[in-house]
């Protein structure tokens, strides 16, 4: 398609060569985050695999969301936040001052807790990202990008007849899928999801989970979730955070059947007082 896309494909193919051990997409090293004087994240190192879903769980205020937001430098937008440590994405340290967070965010999509479609048409919601990044030249190309993104988000069939309708006219679950489609539209490599289902009912939640499972084939997905059950259902790897520290990180199955750390066990089995 274009440069960004080319780069994207390239990474993938090199990753595939290394198929035996899952390729690492994001490598976080010794991350600390401070809000003012308060340390929110304490020395977290974590390697996130490509083409898989990694879930962050932990009690409220454990820093899981904060850590997620380090990965596309959304913490930059919070005045008092200070992030130290290195996060390598395809070999480049994204915390390096020479990295433009705006460009980074076009490669690391994000989906938020509450569905937040722009109050524009469905079409424009999707087209906005490609437009500002110049990812499509001409209407026809843009139409294609929009259709592809909506298809990938499993929303095309539901909305193809009403692309000019406002995005906010959709139901909650559809809105969230629209937001995912919007994130996909700029061809990201990593998609961060911050409790994407906490505002949805079980049915809409199940649909999003199904979508996440499908997207796993192409993207590196990191999801923060309130619900352990959800983490169990959708993720391949799970990281448990507590009081700003990474307590345990491993295969989801292991974490949920046989966690190593006592605190993980306590949290997962509901013994946390």
């Amino acid at each position, binding site marked *: 398609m274009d440069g960004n896309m080319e780069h994207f494909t390239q990474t993938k193919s090199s990753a595939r060569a290394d198929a035996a051990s899952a390729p690492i997409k994001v490598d976080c090293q010794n991350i600390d985050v401070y809000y003012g004087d308060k340390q929110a994240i304490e020395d977290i190192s974590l390697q996130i695999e490509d083409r898989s879903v990694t879930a962050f769980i932990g009690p409220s205020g454990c820093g899981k969301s904060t850590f997620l937001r380090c990965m596309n430098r*959304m913490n930059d937008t919070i*005045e008092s936040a200070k992030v130290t440590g290195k996060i390598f994405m395809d070999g480049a340290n994204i915390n390096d001052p020479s990295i433009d967070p705006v460009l*980074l*965010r076009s490669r690391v999509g994000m989906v938020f807790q509450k569905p*937040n479609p722009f109050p524009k048409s469905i079409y424009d919601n999707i087209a906005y990202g490609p437009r500002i990044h110049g990812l499509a030249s001409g209407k026809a190309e843009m139409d294609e990008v929009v259709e592809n993104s909506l298809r990938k988000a499993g929303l095309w069939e539901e909305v193809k007849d009403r692309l000019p309708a406002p995005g906010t006219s959709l139901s909650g679950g559809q809105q969230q899928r629209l937001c995912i489609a919007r994130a996909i539209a700029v061809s990201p490599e990593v998609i961060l999801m911050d409790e994407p289902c906490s505002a949805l009912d079980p049915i809409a939640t199940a649909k999003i989970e199904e979508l996440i499972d499908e997207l796993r084939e192409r993207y590196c997905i990191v999801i923060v979730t309130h619900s352990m059950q959800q983490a169990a259902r959708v993720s391949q790897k799970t990281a448990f955070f507590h009081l700003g520290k990474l307590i345990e990180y491993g295969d989801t199955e292991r974490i949920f059947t046989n966690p190593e750390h006592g605190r993980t066990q306590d949290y997962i089995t509901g013994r946390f007082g």
Partner: protein
Amino acid sequence: MSSPTEGTANTGSFVTEEALQRLKKRHGAEARFKLYGQLAIGIAIVALVALLVSIFGQASSAFSRYVLSYDLNIEASYVDPDGTRDPEAIARNVSGFNLMLQDQLADEFLSDDANRNLRRELYGMFTRLAVLPIARATADAPETIGSEQIFNVALADDIDLFLKGGVSARKSIEIGTVAAGDGSTEDGVTLTLASQDAAEKLGAALTELTRTDVDDAPAVALIKAGNTWYRMEASEGRNLSLTYLAGPRALPSEGAAIEALILAQSQENRTVTDRQIAWTKILQTQGRIKSVLNTSLFTNSDSTYPELAGTAAAIVGSLLTMLVTALLAIPVGIFAAVYLEEFAPKNRLTSLIEVNINNLAAVPSIVFGLLGAAVFINFMGLPRSVPLVGGLVLGLLVLPTVIIASRAALTAVPPSIRTAALGVGASKTQSVFHHVLPLAAPGIMTGAIIGMARALGETAPLLLIGMVAFVAEVPDGPMDESTVLPVLIYKWSTGAERAWEPQTAAAIIVLLVFLILMNLIAIILRRRFERRW
């Protein structure tokens, strides 16, 4: 629950006697509380209605005015003594036209030997400048000189007021016919009424209107017999002794109808003389006095004569001032709001700015007037009384309002929109200008319009920068001396003559119309585009 005895049947164990007692009390308190609220709203609405009624009541008379529709013979000797037919000279020759009108009226109503007082009384029925339109019309069409033209001449404000029912309480009655007349036409006559009833009717009306507590003179009766007007000096049974005022000097014939106009105040106590009233009445019967829409209220500039004073200059002055205000306050306000809401780092400086702006919005407007006087006029040496300075002062005055409204509109845009934009890789600026600002635009515009409306109604600061000066010309630009509507209202309201009162009320209505229009736009904007998040 309707009553404890009925209730127990199906409510079973649900209520105890004690609870019911309490409940009754609680519901009583509830009803009282609700009543207080209704009362409060009632009072507020009554106040508003009283305000509007009093103003509209006052203003209604100012929107029409009485003119003398007079067929003037445009005589060249008066209007163009040089014979040059120079339009400019003709237009400027107000006194010529005035003299012409005076002479022609005098010809009709006065004998040649009428004294100066009599003449002055007659000439007092219109103001000198009232002929200005005639002069202009003639200047535009010099060929009409020498012909007879019908012109409308504004009557003096007192006459106008009289015709609108002001000046004095009055009553008009018919008192039968003339039974006999006697006396010289020069000084007075004695008339005998046809019936005793009529005399009694007249006497009763006189007593009715005589109010010694207001002024000590008794009520006055003006008598119209035939086409002639007299003032009644005394009455004795059916005989009335009358003094001639106006009209044909012939003694009224027998059987002629008699009408009486009884006025509570004698002419010493009012602004219109008996004779003027008589003339007015005669002109009225001739159909030469008519009521016209008072367009001069909108087309004329300020004047020392209420009947000629208009709001045109003030409206233009207001518009110019508003233009300056808008150019300053709206863009600066919006940009400042965007900066503070979206970009400003959260530190002590910006929180100071915030407190400062909030405080500035609540600073009394007159303080801004002081600022304008001290900085713009004294320090920067800008001229007084010009829309530029007024606009700047008002601009600074409404700037915090616009900033606060814009910030409110910006804050109302949920942060999720911003994060959404950032999430797809838009920069902060892009997220603001592509998403937040367009979404906040209706709110911002509403705020801006309301701010402008506030500026439009603002008076006090403008008084301090000299916009209260008398301005008779429509200003050309923001550096011309001018006044604005609210200041004009203030000025008129302090006018001594009573005719200023309706005039002021009318100006208020003009102002209110503008304000209502602006608020209407704001409301429509809000209704139309308001988004609930």
